[in-house]
């Protein structure tokens, strides 16, 4: 894509700026909640004395500062050293503590993989790996865009993987993973996070998928912020007499295969997996495997990021460019339906 193809202005002509490391998903026409992870962790810590927080120089940028201010003696600053961060989290967990260790998803997945795998997962230790800027939620370019974090972590035995949709789910999932014994990787939505699931009387259950709306023509199987996009797309497509269901899958591993097969097996619906992740090795491939293995063969389509290093830029621009915007999701579905 050449420079001249790139939109210089967003909706209403506002200048779009690179949303650098402070990735915010507000301006979706929804109310937002500030630092839902940080506040939820404080509530967990109030009832569980063994919960501690650790970070690698990203407390302020992973909402852990809320916890650090509330529980200063339970907060450990490990410096800009992610291998140490997860090794130390392992040591702390060996002494009986439940550790929430935060950094950016790129640094956890790419830089510290061996340390998480051998020091934490192999011994099934109680460390919660909280990864900021997951998938494409930063405009800062490949150094900060964790477009392949799910693919990397899905290969790790013992590790539970959670990709929350919104502020409601961030808070509920934080409590749920604290109560789950064992290692968890959770994608973090930080800063001002939209409230999407509030109207749905939603209750996060680790390992469970949940049908948020039903529809005859298309079944979205979505995770993370793409559930928000799928819900918006479904609302818009309803006006064009395209009836979409949305099955939200916040736990990537272990996958709720039973619910997915049940929903996908219902007659005639096209299955569209939507994820904020490269199309390689994430939810789409996990769902495809589950469908094929069980002999369920619906029309299958996949919305995800390309297998490429992505451009820097403003998030709305990038989401549109790479197919994650509501416009692009609606366009893809209509094209597939012919």
């Amino acid at each position, binding site marked *: 894509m050449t420079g001249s193809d790139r939109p210089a202005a967003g909706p209403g002509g506002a200048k779009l700026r690179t949303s650098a490391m402070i990735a915010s998903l507000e301006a979706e026409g929804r109310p937002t909640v500030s630092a839902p992870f940080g506040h939820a962790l404080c509530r967990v810590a109030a009832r569980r004395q063994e919960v*501690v927080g650790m970070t690698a120089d990203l407390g302020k940028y992973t909402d852990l500062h809320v916890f650090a201010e509330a529980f200063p003696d339970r907060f*450990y600053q*490990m*410096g800009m*050293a992610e*291998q*140490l961060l*997860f*090794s*130390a*989290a*392992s*040591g*702390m*967990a*060996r*002494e*009986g*503590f439940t550790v929430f260790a935060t950094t950016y998803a790129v640094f956890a997945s790419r830089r510290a993989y*061996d*340390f998480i795998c*051998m*020091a934490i997962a*192999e*011994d099934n230790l109680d460390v919660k790996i909280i990864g900021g800027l997951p998938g494409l939620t930063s405009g800062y370019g490949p150094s900060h865009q964790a477009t392949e974090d799910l693919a990397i972590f899905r290969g790790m035995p013992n590790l539970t993987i959670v990709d929350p949709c919104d502020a409601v789910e961030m808070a509920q999932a934080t409590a749920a993973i604290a109560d789950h014994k064992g290692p968890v990787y959770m994608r973090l939505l930080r800063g001002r996070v939209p409230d999407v699931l509030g109207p749905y009387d939603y209750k996060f259950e680790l390992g469970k998928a949940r049908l948020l709306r039903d529809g005859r023509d298309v079944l979205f199987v979505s995770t993370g912020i793409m559930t928000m996009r799928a819900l918006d797309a479904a609302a818009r497509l309803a006006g064009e007499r395209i009836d979409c269901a949305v099955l939200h899958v916040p736990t990537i591993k272990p996958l709720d295969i039973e619910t997915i097969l049940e929903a996908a097996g219902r007659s005639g619906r096209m299955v569209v997996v939507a994820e904020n992740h490269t199309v390689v090795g994430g939810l789409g491939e996990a769902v495809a495997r589950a469908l094929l293995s069980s002999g369920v063969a619906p029309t299958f389509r996949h919305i995800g990021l390309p297998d490429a290093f992505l451009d820097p830029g403003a998030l709305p621009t990038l989401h549109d460019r790479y197919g994650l915007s509501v416009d692009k999701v609606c366009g893809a579905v209509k094209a597939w339906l012919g």
Partner: protein
Amino acid sequence: MTSANPSHRANVSLQERARRIRRYALRMGQVQGQGYVGQALGFADVLAVLYFHALAFDPRDPDWEGRDRLYLSIGHYAIALYAALIEAGVLPESELETYGADGSRLPMSGITSHTPGMEITGGSLGHGLGIAVGAALGLKRKASGSFIYNLLSDGELGEGSTWEAAMSGAHHGLDNLIAVVDFNNQQADGPSTNILCAEPLTEKWEAFGWYAQRVDGNDIDALTEAFNKARACDAARPRVIICDTLMGRGVPFLEAREKTHFIRIEPEEWELALAALDDGRPQ
């Protein structure tokens, strides 16, 4: 000085402990016909001083909360640690026959879930000291008086994560953390000092804020003194003991061998090696 030596064979000298550890390691190596026997022979004196002088532990209860933790970052030294655990009474001697066999509790590289007394899964080098930093912080949270010992090797010092951990241990003032470096100057591709030289090593650790000592790792008296000083040091600093050791120590024809990182010993040589150890038995 805390010492919870098992009561059996309580009057055995540390020199004899080290010889027995060497013997157990050789016998395990003999089972498989190969192994990191050179390291085990070289490091046996350090292990003898650790288990029978420095460490608080209960052989009947390897997970006793009050124990000192010993992390074997160098997972390929498992044969040496198993030998020490047998001598310490944590593992039965009869089990050495299973070394490296399918289903054995004594795999060829150390794995926590397989072996009593194996605190971490080492082997992927550069992990141990970071885990030790976290555990030392955890022990302090619990107001525990236990020490964390982390056994690492000179080759492992090439892993940058070790130095992240070294910096952190000093930053957090971890006076309950003792690193032990086996400096045998041998790694997979040759002498460590030719591959990625860590010298000047004592000065390096000191510059990182540690209380550092360097001793002859095959001199039992020097080792006991070094461990005493490491524990007794009253500075709020982590401690390191760099132990210069000789690969194959105690078996002259192995000491003389040029390539000792992963020794292949001919079938008839095992008995010769065991006999050489017995010849050198302390009086």
